[in-house]
């Protein structure tokens, strides 16, 4: 899912605090609108990003930053969100309700952990013409 190098990339770093979820939702909707996603697709992506960030915030230490990387191609938006994690913390399993929401609302969703950071990657392909 590594995007090509000529994508437009938007980076947004906010404090890992639930109060900033609305900012990330708004940014997501704005970028999806730029790609001419349909209104339903924008709504789905908005909630997917919210759910992914909420999962990460639950395992982030106080005072951490939440990093979002939006990668824009002609017909797809890839959103990668990551936080440093508290020791021993784990993301919910892929059978959890939150994961079911993520996979239902996006083209592809995946999670990974490395170097003390957890990352969730969401890919949404535009289906409308």
């Amino acid at each position: 899912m590594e995007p090509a190098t000529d994508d437009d990339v938007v980076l947004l770093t906010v404090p890992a605090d639930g109060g900033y979820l609305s900012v990330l939702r708004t940014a997501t909707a704005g970028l999806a609108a730029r790609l001419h996603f349909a209104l339903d697709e924008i709504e789905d992506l908005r909630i997917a990003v919210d759910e992914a960030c909420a999962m990460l915030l639950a395992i982030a230490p106080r005072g951490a930053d939440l990093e979002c990387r939006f990668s824009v191609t002609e017909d797809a938006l890839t959103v990668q969100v990551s936080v440093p994690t508290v020791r021993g913390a784990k993301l919910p399993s892929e059978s959890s309700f939150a994961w079911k929401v993520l996979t239902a609302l996006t083209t592809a969703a995946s999670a990974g952990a490395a170097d003390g950071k957890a990352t969730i990657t969401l890919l949404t392909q535009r289906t409308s013409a």
Partner: protein
Amino acid sequence: MAFTVMPETGDTRTATVRLAGELDMSTVPELDTAITQLVGTGRNRLVVDLAELAFCDSTGLACLVRGDNRCAEVGGWLRVTNHRGHVARVLAVSGLDEFLQYQP
């Protein structure tokens, strides 16, 4: 849009709670508190009006289910009404719309 919880007490057992704005992990505690306060005054039948709610995620849904459980512990229920747009879709995707739908 700021999140607001507007409880209106009906008779001694019922209350309507109108929500406006966005219900997510940062605003869920406000709704939790309002539900706890209403149940504390003996109201165990809560109708949550979602007409002006613009956003709800799974933490918001969990809060509504928690509220219903809290009411059920004292012989009542929590139901939702007037959901539309995105909020209606989230309730439908989760299957909670049938379970939590207010039927007067």
